[in-house]
């Protein structure tokens, strides 16, 4: 017996996509293996995902995919067979034109995360987001038409390239959305930064590596801070601390210990510091013992707001935010919760609210939240890495000083 799926597998691609009559999406990916960002996002477009109490299938046809590195663990080819409305193409241009020579899709997913790419002397992974982006906009220019683009994570490891991506989207007038899933995932508690709050100082306690999870932690901070009174005013300077300098800075009160402790008290993954105890609060000595390579990025915004991002691998495995708000006695704090596989879950469901916001980008042709957020966090990530590279020197950031924007009033995090 021939199943409908097998029947479709043999049908011409364009015809099957056209039959559905839904907007067409191209996915441009570095790689596609289990737990890679491409797998999380593209699968949600192909298969659907749990949303608002149902299995939601995005109203799009993901018609084409380009995968830069197809290794032995690749899943894209299998998915192509299983979901025949999606076809793989050998070049980015082909994926965007569906081989017609002209832009033939209505939206682009640019997922340049994971895969084997070189690292530079600063230990930044040279993911080819900018290079992919250039190829995408070339098709736009050649076709005289541009469509919305979602760029996963930060724009580029290279600030100048990131800025060029931002400028290009403005110049060519297409909506560009970017960033992490941290701003949009569940929060425990499920709270939003009050709009126009007078924020005194903010801290994010997170984990992971430099030029990796630092970006997620910076997005965690920024999605909250941008809602403060006056909106984002730009960042004046950045200074990184690590190792002994980190512990000294903590002792000297370079960042608020009250906020750091509040953020730690939102963690669901505090490493027990004493054998036989499952959930104790660490002393300074046990923190030093547990956290072998602490990293902090401390930075000041133009309106005087001080922010600190702390990577405390060994002590926590989650992202926790705390800040002072005028008029509140206690810190305002929450956790941006990531149901993280494979230890805790089987699905990385924080990609569900991210995918849902990408759907809004494609449907409304407008990013649900400002690209300037991710432009700033891209620059902050690079500046933090640079400060580490320059022996933890405080670096002025005139290029980040100009990133001024108001936050949208509406909340975009996952809460229903």
């Amino acid at each position: 017996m021939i199943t409908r799926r097998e029947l479709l597998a043999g049908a011409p691609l364009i015809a099957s996509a056209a039959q559905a009559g839904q907007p067409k999406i191209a996915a441009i990916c570095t790689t596609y293996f289990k737990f890679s960002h491409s797998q999380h996002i593209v699968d949600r477009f192909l298969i659907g995902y749990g949303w608002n109490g149902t299995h939601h299938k995005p109203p799009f046809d993901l018609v084409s995919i380009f995968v830069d590195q197809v290794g032995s663990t690749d899943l894209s080819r299998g998915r192509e067979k299983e979901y025949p409305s999606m076809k793989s193409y050998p070049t980015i241009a082909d994926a965007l034109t569906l081989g017609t020579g002209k832009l033939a899709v209505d939206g682009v997913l640019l997922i340049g995360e994971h895969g084997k790419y070189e690292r530079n002397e600063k230990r930044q992974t040279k993911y080819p987001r900018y290079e992919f982006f250039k190829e995408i906009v070339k098709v736009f220019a050649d076709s005289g038409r541009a469509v919305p683009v979602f760029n996963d994570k930060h724009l580029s490891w290279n600030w100048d390239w990131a800025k060029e991506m931002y400028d290009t989207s403005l110049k060519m007038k297409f909506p560009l959305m970017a960033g992490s899933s941290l701003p949009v995932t569940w929060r425990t508690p499920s709270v939003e930064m009050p709009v126009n709050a007078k924020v005194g100082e903010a801290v994010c306690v997170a984990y992971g590596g430099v030029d990796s999870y630092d970006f997620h932690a910076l997005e965690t901070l920024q999605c909250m801070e941008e809602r403060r009174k006056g909106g984002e005013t730009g960042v004046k300077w950045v200074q990184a601390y690590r190792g002994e300098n980190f512990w000294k800075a903590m002792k000297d009160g370079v960042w608020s210990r009250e906020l750091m402790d509040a953020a730690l008290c939102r963690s669901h993954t505090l490493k027990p510091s004493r054998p036989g105890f499952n959930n104790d609060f660490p002393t300074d000595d046990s923190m030093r013992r547990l956290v072998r390579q602490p990293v902090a990025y401390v930075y000041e915004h133009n309106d005087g707001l001080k922010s600190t991002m702390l990577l405390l691998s060994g002590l926590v495995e989650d992202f926790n935010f705390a800040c002072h708000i005028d008029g509140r006695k206690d810190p305002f704090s929450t956790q941006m919760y990531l149901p993280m596989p494979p230890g805790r879950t089987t699905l990385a469901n924080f990609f569900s609210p991210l995918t849902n916001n990408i759907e809004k980008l494609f449907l409304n042709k407008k990013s649900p939240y400002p690209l300037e957020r991710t432009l700033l966090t891209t620059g902050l990530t690079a500046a933090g890495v640079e400060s580490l590279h320059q022996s933890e020197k405080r670096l002025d950031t005139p290029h980040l000083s100009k990133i001024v924007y108001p936050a949208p009033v509406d909340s975009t995090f996952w809460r229903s």
Partner: protein
Amino acid sequence: MPKRVAIIATIYRYLSHAQHMGDRFLIGYPLHGKWHKGDMEVVSLYVDQKPEGDQSQERAKEFGFKVYPTIAEALRCGGEKLAVDAVLLIGEHGNYPRNDLGQVLYPRYEFFKQCVEVFEKDGRSVPVYNDKHLSYSFEKAKWMVDQSKKLGFPMLAGSSLPVTWRLPDLELPLGCEIEDALMVGVGGSDPMDYHALEAMQCMVERRKGGESGVKSVQLIDGDAVWEDKRWSRPLLVAALSRSDSPLGLTVEDARTQDLLGSGQLQKIVKKPAAYFIERNDGLRTTLLMLDGAVRDYNFAARIKGKGIASTQFFLSPTPNVTYSACLVSKIEELFVTGKAPYPVERTLIVSGALESCLQSRKQGGKKLDTPHLAVKYQGVKTPQHARE
């Protein structure tokens, strides 16, 4: 003056309930973004069993209290009269036999009875928290609740599921009209079905008129579950849509799944079980125990005029199990205010419904009328789960 607390436990070993709850009274716990140390002092401990890894003496030494050989002595701190302000009764974990219904015979009733004897003899009673269900036997559970009424001491019991974080932060409006409710649970009986039933109960007790009591129960298992028309397909889709841990193909390649729609559910759940619980006001509720489908606890209900509401009861990761901090904050409230933050009848009705469901299973899935479960009570207005 700090409240003087006695801990009465089956065992005190790493990651046992007594350890992760008892320790929070000793070293504090995270609450509302602070490390909270309640104004409470553990003054005595009784442990029934001291298996390998026992921590009772170690804790007593470090925190300056004594381990007593009997419950009465622990409550009197070795003196003549009741010498504590509250009792934390944790009869979970330890080596106890099972009965023919498959229930572990944890001696909660027996421990509680000894507490009550001290209260009666000494002419004074103090608040008691009983961890998890009251007893494997409804008759015994009922006796426990009756004693608290008779002697006039506040009592709280139950699981951490009702009070943990919810994803999303859903609370049903008090007095809403619930048309149908379904809970998906996993794990062995009788510990895990109990947790799932209590999670469902804390939601459905908020319906118009409050809890009216359980009229009948029926537990069926095997393929008959798939064919049964009493449980709602849309509610199962809604509950499963809240899961972060679908199994089967997701384990293989991390794909998302519409488990029911794709037909995978029936393939990956080898031994489904349905617990049908019919209420006196006509509401029908179902617990589906779907081992092999997911690893988390999810709920869905159809609310008149509002459609389907659904959520996941978030069991935060081991070893912190911060959900037990949520529960300890409720126990602390009981001990400090002398008032149970939510009714012990919730746990009473769940204890009885579970026992009757297991009897139904033993009788080959026979529907059983349960006139003894006419437990009526009202839910409380203020949400009690973690949300601040």
